């Protein structure tokens, strides 16, 4: 096993080398053949959507586009999520990248600053183009006010709750908690303890989401103030969020928390789906798991409760954007495809088929009435697409590319009781400032 790491690295290196060599040959060849044989330009499109559910959806979108074109042919290349971007980078460095790639929306600016993707402003003829998308997503793809990607999909965190358990506990199933305090008091009412062990857990804030989501929820910023361009890790709201989470942890005990945490990793054994947890914060797309495995439970969906009344129900999301890598052979044709991919029709289809939140507002709206969804699906989709207006994206700051790797361990230490939340967040703030000084 000792040589394994080195061997694997070597294999990966050789694989990358041969792939770039092969694609180098293939690239030139296909350029010639596509020009002479079919008279079409081939656009190489890289995604990580290879699963049984996603692959047919993206391939249908591609097929529809290809049918409508007599000049462009899009070829779909699937690469596993784990190495698509490393391979893309290698291909960019080798001067032979794909024409379109799906990449992380939070780091579009980083690639722009590092010369890895293409400024799209020269292709955008229509000044209202940006209005097609949720504004916070469009903001994320800008670098020095120029777009370097087009938002494709996104997500958000919501509160799922079990209506049957609400009834059992004497709570109104149509009145989910609205504030952090209500969450706490509801949770205690929903708890069921038998022989010193929990049979039902009311709520624990850090299953399904990280502490950063609650920090963002509290006041609209988590670790970084984008307007002032400075880290705000040790904000009072952030410390409050940790103290609030600790209150739950002390209530249930670390052992119980860790046991359940391990179970949340497995789909069928998910404790919320099994009816062992009454309220659960998760990505909105958790709907598909409830649809497929949770037929027996009567669930509801609602916004994240506000820290205090009126402080806002801010949620957190991420997402992916379509980009043209630097040095792509057919940027003009690539742009035509991106326009189609992020257009209303494709977006609505993707949204309804995958129950995924899409970046195109009209697409999201259309999906909420799509015949591909059942009644509950439509209602849920309508809710999540509207709630997205209260959802923030937290792009990775240019000056602190790996700041979460510093902050998260400090949060762990606070939750493990090794440091007070205040101490942990102060230390994290200092460490992030140090990181930023390294990058200036």
């Amino acid at each position: 096993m000792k040589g394994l790491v080195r061997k694997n690295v070597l294999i990966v290196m050789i694989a990358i080398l041969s792939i770039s060599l092969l694609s180098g040959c293939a690239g030139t060849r296909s350029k010639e053949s596509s020009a002479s044989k079919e008279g079409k330009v081939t656009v190489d499109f890289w995604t990580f959507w290879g699963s049984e559910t996603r692959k047919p959806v993206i391939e249908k979108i591609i097929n529809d586009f290809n049918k409508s074109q007599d000049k462009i042919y899009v070829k779909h290349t699937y690469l596993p999520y784990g190495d698509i971007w490393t391979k893309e980078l290698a291909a960019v460095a080798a001067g032979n990248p794909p024409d379109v790639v799906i990449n992380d929306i939070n780091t579009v600016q980083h690639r722009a600053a590092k010369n890895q993707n293409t400024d799209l402003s020269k292709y955008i003829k229509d000044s209202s183009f940006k209005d097609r998308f949720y504004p916070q997503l469009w903001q994320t793809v800008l670098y020095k006010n120029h777009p370097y990607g087009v938002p494709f999909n996104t997500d958000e965190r919501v509160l799922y709750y079990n209506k049957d358990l609400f009834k059992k506990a004497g709570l109104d199933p149509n009145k989910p908690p609205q504030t952090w305090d209500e969450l706490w008091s509801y949770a205690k009412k929903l708890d069921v303890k038998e022989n010193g062990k929990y049979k039902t857990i009311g709520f624990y804030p850090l299953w399904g989401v990280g502490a950063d989501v609650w920090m963002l929820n509290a006041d609209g910023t988590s670790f970084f103030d984008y307007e002032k361009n400075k880290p705000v890790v040790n904000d009072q709201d952030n410390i409050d969020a940790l103290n609030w989470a600790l209150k739950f942890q002390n209530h249930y005990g670390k052992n119980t928390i860790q046991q359940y945490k391990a179970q949340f990793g497995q789909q069928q054994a998910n404790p919320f789906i099994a009816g062992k947890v009454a309220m659960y914060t998760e990505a909105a797309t958790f709907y598909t798991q409830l649809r497929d495995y949770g037929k027996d439970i009567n669930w509801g969906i609602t916004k994240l409760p506000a820290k205090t009344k009126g402080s806002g129900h801010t949620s957190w999301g991420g997402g992916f954007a379509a980009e043209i890598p630097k040095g792509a052979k057919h940027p003009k044709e690539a742009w035509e495809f991106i326009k189609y991919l992020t257009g209303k029709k494709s977006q609505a289809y993707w949204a309804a088929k995958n129950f995924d939140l899409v970046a195109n507002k009209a697409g999201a709206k259309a999906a909420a009435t799509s015949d591909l969804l059942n009644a509950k699906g439509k209602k849920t989709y309508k809710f999540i697409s509207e709630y997205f207006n209260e959802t923030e994206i937290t792009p990775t700051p240019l000056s602190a590319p790996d700041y979460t790797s510093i902050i998260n361990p400090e949060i762990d230490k606070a939750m493990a009781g090794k440091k007070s939340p205040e101490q942990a967040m102060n230390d994290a703030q200092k460490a992030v400032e140090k990181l930023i000084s390294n990058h200036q």
Partner: protein
Amino acid sequence: MMEPPIKTAIHSNQIKKVKRKSSLQRKESLQGYLFIAPWLIGMVFITAGPLLFSFYGSFTNYDITSHMDFIGLKNYIRMFTNDDLFWTSLFNTLYYVVISVPITVVAALLLAVLLNQKVPGMRIFRTIYYLPAILSGVGVYLLWMQLLSPTGLVNTVLDWFGINGPAWLFDPKWTKPALIFMKLWSVGGSMLLYLASLQGVPKSLYEAAEIDGANAFQKFRHVTLPMITPVLFFDLVTSTIGGFQIFQEAYVMSQNGDGGPANSLLFFNLHMWNKAFEVFDMGYAMAMSWILFVIILVLTIINIKLAPRWVHYEGEKNS
């Protein structure tokens, strides 16, 4: 050590003979080089190039696509003065090496001694204990994540004995012990080496010891152990090197490969990987790799220098 007297005994008329012999030797050495040529070519063209490139790169701010400016020792200075995670990762790695290497070496040896007994069905036992070593990494890690889950099999068994097992992979205090525990399971590879060398110990030595009245422990301590020191030494050196390179386990077994709760599984190579392939700070990552190289080099040299004090090679003139 026996050579010098022979050399002085060569007479002038024998020199021709020696020369003829050396042409044969030359031919043989040419054949030798031919045999190792595939490796040599690979080394020069595939390994040495990137190696030298990474050495130069460690003095630059290389990020693959936008710049590669010479910045002197800045990466190294930053590593030692301005990157807390560097020290965390170094500490974690040293912890792992210091604890896991002795334990796995002793466990492998112990297992080999047990499997060297003459008991019916021994071949089956040997196969069973060797089996984990042939299973591929990631699958094994996923299996162990299940076993080590707070309500997993390991804790269930501990529970039978009234021990309330820890949350292994979720508790920062227990993540590294959990990993070491897991590695113990797959000592089969080095066990095989010990088994082979145990069977190579001449019976006559044991017989002589028995005649002298040695008991089982004395036989092990004064016959077996000295005779297998070369393998012990080899295992120690390779285990140490392998220990410093630990990566996969932490990458697979921590969430998103981020280094586990409170960075307790952030090993040197994992930190380096994150710098290189997560934020593309290649220059810095290259500098880190050279520091790791120096650390391993120094430790290996120390190991080799200390070896003559305890490693016994048969056939060597021994005082």
